[in-house]
């Protein structure tokens, strides 16, 4: 049962993610998570301020159903299909994180240094989460997709724009992981 309760192998995980995309294609839809953020803005009345949000959100109900399912799936996987043995990252990564004052996983999905309620209550902790979100929301809409829409869906349809977007993901991601994170977390 370790196969289920521990970390799923990358080959199985990757296959099942590819399958998710193909299932949605079979249902006549496209795989993309970030468009739900736009739909939610429209539902909140953003159409009054920008034409970008003027569309009938009811046509996107199917996608909101996927996201609601993903939320439930996260709950099921975390509370019923895990035994706390996962997230065994490279020991070098762990010691590197230690120098930044970021706690080791020890089975956790997310570090307390960024995601605990105590961190959230500090101005710096709150700002990191909010700015991270702003970049994700603005960046994905500007690029017209995220990991699901470009890296999986777009690339598997051999789309050149998606390749450019994925190169962008890595420019930004590498800059953050190698240069900016150390500046933010450097213990003075």
């Amino acid at each position: 049962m370790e196969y289920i309760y521990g970390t799923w192998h990358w080959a199985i995980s990757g296959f099942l993610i590819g399958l998710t995309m193909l299932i949605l294609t079979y249902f006549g839809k496209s795989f993309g998570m970030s468009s739900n953020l736009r739909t939610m803005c429209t539902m909140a009345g953003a159409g009054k301020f920008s034409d970008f949000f003027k569309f009938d959100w009811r046509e996107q109900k199917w996608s909101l159903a996927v996201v609601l399912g993903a939320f439930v799936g996260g709950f099921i996987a975390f509370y019923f299909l895990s035994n706390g043995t996962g997230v065994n990252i490279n020991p070098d990564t762990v010691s590197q994180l230690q120098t930044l004052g970021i706690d080791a996983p020890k089975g956790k999905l997310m570090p307390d240094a960024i995601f605990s309620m105590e961190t959230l209550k500090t101005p710096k902790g709150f700002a990191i989460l909010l700015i991270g979100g702003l970049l994700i929301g603005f960046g994905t809409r500007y690029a017209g997709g995220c990991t699901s829409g470009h890296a999986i869906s777009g690339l598997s349809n051999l789309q050149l724009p998606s390749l450019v977007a994925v190169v962008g993901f890595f420019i930004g991601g590498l800059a953050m992981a190698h240069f900016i994170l150390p500046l933010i977390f450097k213990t003075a």
Partner: protein
Amino acid sequence: MKLARFFLTGIFFGIVLTKAEAVSWYRIYEMFQFQSFHMYGIIGTALFTGVVGNQIIKKFKIKDYNGYSIHIIEKERGFWRYIIGGSLFGLGWALVGSCPGPIFILLGTGTYAIAVVLIGALLGTYIYGLLKDKLPH
């Protein structure tokens, strides 16, 4: 119920991404440090599955669930929107370790602080909507 199949697909996706640990901040950090093959293996296998699947769909002209022929939408041409937008998303991805799908999945795993990321992401999307016509695409 018409939405049930989408809801079930979402549950499947949420379980897979959580168990793959693709929702984990640590896995994203490790990936950008090139210290593990895990995330590259996942993305590579997903891509391989997708490419093969799409080719099968095209070659055998497979019909969708409703009996219509499948048209996979081509992405709009452009350069600046993809490279700039992509880089901005990459910065956020590596900072808080989540892409839009995992934001919702992580809420389900009880990572409540991710709600702040969600609020930021909604604000960011809204700001893009306001600035859209002024940006190079």
